[in-house]
């Protein structure tokens, strides 16, 4: 069979995978919800951050707060009335006269120390940051979580999609007609390609919506800070997804019924979940993140994170990418082998030994 025909078959198979997926109402609705969540969290987050509300404070007569911004003063007659308001939760705190030097005022809080108010009332010395470009630790945490969640959610959703699609062909026996007409590898390649296009398309949509959200809420200045990390994430994602997709396809091919998918895909599912939890719990641990950034299954999350943190040398992502690509090539070969050997074995679960035997 010529290369041109094989390409054509791969394209046909991929186009079918995409078309059938786009027709699924469940898929469209879940994508819509995901996009709405991304947009919502960016816009709402920025609105709450941009408009801090004034702190309601009960102020006993005789205390002058006219030159302190950010305070909504509620005048009260004496300390007793102020205490009542604080206890009832009507105000966050109260400022009362005090004999204690040097300020001559005291703050009444209910249960917590009202730190917001204290900082408003305090005089801070000027601060100069020597490394002004270092990422804000909170933003770093968010970026780590975002890469982790996006990779995890996408790999799981579309990985299971491809496993189900493989099992569907087995369980409905359409596989026999397909294999009589086209080479197994072309079928597998088409499936992986189609699903990868969907996965990458969904990620691109998320990034687009995130960028729109950022520009709507005036946070475009963040883009230079996270742009390179996001670009590397895209590159690692594509390769990493193909790796996982081929493993999901191979493990899916071992069973003949949708109900049995879980029994063989679990090892692959673990490979997706472990890096996700590691990055959530250890995103501040440079050693763990450093190791993860080279391990093929976690590199798509950890390496972009290190790029964002500025802890990766310029050559490090390239080395990690080469490792990832080599692993992918190797595992695709193993996966294709399992897939080929298992496709026509209907009925009972195909054992690993059987699937890998020479």
């Amino acid at each position: 069979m010529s290369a041109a025909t094989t390409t054509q078959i791969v394209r046909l198979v991929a186009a079918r995978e995409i078309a059938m997926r786009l027709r699924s109402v469940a898929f469209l609705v879940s994508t819509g919800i995901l996009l709405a969540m991304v947009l919502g969290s960016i816009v709402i987050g920025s609105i709450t951050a941009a408009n801090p509300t004034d702190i309601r404070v009960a102020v006993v007569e005789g205390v002058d707060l006219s030159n302190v911004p950010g305070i909504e003063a509620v005048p009260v007659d004496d300390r007793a009335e102020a205490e009542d308001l604080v206890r009832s939760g009507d105000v966050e705190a109260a400022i009362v006269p005090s004999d204690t030097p040097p300020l001559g005022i005291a703050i009444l809080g209910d249960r917590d120390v009202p730190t917001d108010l204290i900082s408003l009332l305090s005089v801070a010395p000027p601060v100069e940051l020597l490394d002004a470009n270092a990422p804000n630790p909170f933003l770093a945490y968010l970026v780590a979580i975002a890469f982790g969640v996006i990779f995890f959610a996408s790999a799981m959703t579309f990985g299971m999609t491809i496993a189900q699609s493989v099992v569907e062909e087995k369980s409905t026996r359409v596989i026999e007609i397909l294999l009589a007409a086209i080479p197994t590898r072309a079928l597998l390649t088409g499936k992986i390609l189609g699903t990868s296009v969907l996965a990458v398309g969904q990620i691109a949509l998320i990034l687009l919506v995130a960028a729109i959200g950022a520009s709507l809420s005036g946070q475009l200045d963040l883009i230079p800070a996270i742009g390179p990390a996001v670009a590397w994430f895209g590159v690692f994602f594509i390769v990493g997804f193909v790796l996982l997709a081929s493993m999901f396809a191979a493990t899916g091919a071992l069973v003949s019924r949708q109900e049995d998918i879980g029994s063989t895909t679990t090892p692959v599912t673990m490979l997706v979940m472990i890096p996700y939890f590691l990055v959530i719990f250890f995103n501040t641990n440079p050693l763990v993140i450093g190791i993860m950034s080279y391990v093929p299954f976690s590199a798509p999350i950890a390496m972009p994170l290190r790029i964002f943190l500025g802890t990766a040398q310029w050559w490090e992502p390239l080395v990690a990418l080469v490792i990832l690509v080599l692993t992918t090539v190797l595992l695709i070969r193993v996966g294709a082998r399992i897939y080929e050997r298992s496709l026509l074995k209907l009925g009972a679960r195909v054992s690993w030994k059987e699937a890998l035997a020479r």
Partner: protein
Amino acid sequence: MLQVRGLDKSYGSRKVLDDVSFDVEPGKMTGFVGGNGAGKTTTMRIILGVLEPDAGEVRLDGETLRSGSRRGFGYMPEERGLYPKMRLEEQLVYLARLHGLETPVARANTLALIERLGLRERAGEPIEKLSLGNQQRAQIAAALVHDPDVLVLDEPFSGLDPMAVEVVVDVLRERANRGIPVLFSSHQLDIVERLCDDLVIIADGRIRAAGPRRDLRAKHATLRYRVAAENTAWLDGRPGVTVVERTPEGAMFDAADANTVQDALAAALAHGAVTDFSRQHPTLAEIFKEVVR
């Protein structure tokens, strides 16, 4: 011509095919007959390349088939199946394109077949919504949609009502008349008998008989005669005559040789009016039973 040569296949220690060889000639319908587990499906899967034989090969017009050289084959597997959520029409177009047809041709073939098999009203429905009979027709359409140059059908008539059987018989005959080899298996021996030109009989993984149906019938022909007459009592005890069956109309008997037949006819006429005196050809079911015994 499709030639199957020396196929061996074992599953573990169980040998399911043993030196299976036969020809499927172009322009002819070849019936493939055998009991359950005789090796029909295994043979067909090997012909289609979805299963590797341990030994032997399949040739088309003298050339050994390799993987990828069967794109022009039409196949209806024993285990039926199409994509349940895909609409009938798009599914047929898709399969035709996988077999290498351009979209316009794929579409035209699909429409023609859907019309021919009486599925026009169902064209836009997903396969899972079709009745079983219609799914079966859709499966036949899937085997034919790319204008195959070889047709291999595993039990194409099972699950069809008598009207649908007629439609499918016509469609298959039409394809054979265009000059392609058609191999089909069936348990319904009466259909095979009526439809096929050539026969291949398999039992326990071995070919027991293969060749033109007429030759097979002639080979297994016996001197069995049916006589319908007022009186058939004279048959009893007649030398060279074995009475096989008696009916109210008359009797059936086997004759030892041609002279016995002539004597019997004369005797029948001598004993009264004769309304029928005819040679009985063995049915396929009888030949089958004899061959696989």
